[in-house]
């Protein structure tokens, strides 16, 4: 399969590993930031075929992974209210809280919806003036401007039935905290998503 086989070609992988082995002259500790990277590294055993002097440390994960249980439980409490239409991105609705995930609430009859864009949540509010639409606004730096645009547009359209449950996180302060921690061994990062492209 094009572009997939190339990445899973054992000979190519071996050549790259050999090349890394040739240039590594001292131990390296590298943290991958994204949970998707961790998943791939562990699933395909990349950590085991790298030279022993290269150590991969699992990083904090994405905004979906790092959303606190407390925030998810808040989302559940809000979504369970009868006058609320609760919406977020699909993967967020699958993250378990103390009492199951948001899709389970939907199965129980609560009005929980998957949206593609924060602006879709604004459209939902405009189309349903009798419902209070709450958008679960999670994200890194890349998602915050999109959530901000939803707020800006809701205000411009004079919507009174649109709210956000906000859980934004910043990556650089987390990296700085790790790098400046006493006893830190991390010397480099594999950036997430767009950064890693």
């Amino acid at each position, binding site marked *: *399969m094009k572009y997939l086989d190339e990445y899973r070609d054992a000979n190519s992988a071996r050549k790259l590993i050999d090349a890394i082995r040739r240039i590594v002259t001292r131990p390296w500790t590298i943290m991958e930031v994204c949970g998707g990277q961790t998943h791939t590294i562990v699933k395909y055993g990349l950590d085991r075929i790298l030279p022993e002097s290269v150590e991969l440390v699992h990083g904090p994960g994405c905004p*979906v992974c790092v959303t606190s249980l407390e925030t998810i439980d808040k989302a559940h409490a809000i979504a369970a209210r009868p006058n609320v239409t609760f919406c977020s991105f699909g993967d*967020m609705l699958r993250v378990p809280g103390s009492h199951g995930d948001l899709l389970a609430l939907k199965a129980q009859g609560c009005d929980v919806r998957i*949206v*593609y*864009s924060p602006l879709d949540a604004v459209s939902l509010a405009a189309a349903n003036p009798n419902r209070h639409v709450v958008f679960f606004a999670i994200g890194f730096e*890349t*998602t915050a401007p999109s959530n901000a*645009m939803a707020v800006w547009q809701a205000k411009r359209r004079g919507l009174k039935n649109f709210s956000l449950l906000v859980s934004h996180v910043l990556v650089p302060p987390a990296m700085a905290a790790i790098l400046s921690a006493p006893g830190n061994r991390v010397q480099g990062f594999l950036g997430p998503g767009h950064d890693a492209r």
Partner: protein
Amino acid sequence: MCLGIPGKVVETYREHDVLMGKVDFGGVFKRVCLEYVPQVQPGAYVIVHVGFALNTIDETEAQIVFDFLERMNQLDELKVPAL
């Protein structure tokens, strides 16, 4: 939601004073906010994250990234129906 997905801008329009566009993701059309790439014209390729174009991208790279994401089954968010 972590990924940016490349697509081709088919048309641009204003909706509630916001610059929007119809973007083609391999035959799936989505309504995308273009406010953060205001110079973009129909025919251009953009990288889209949660319904917002974050940057422009050249056609060759767009195709490579899109094909790769498709084969990694990472395009499920495109299946969320428009409202």
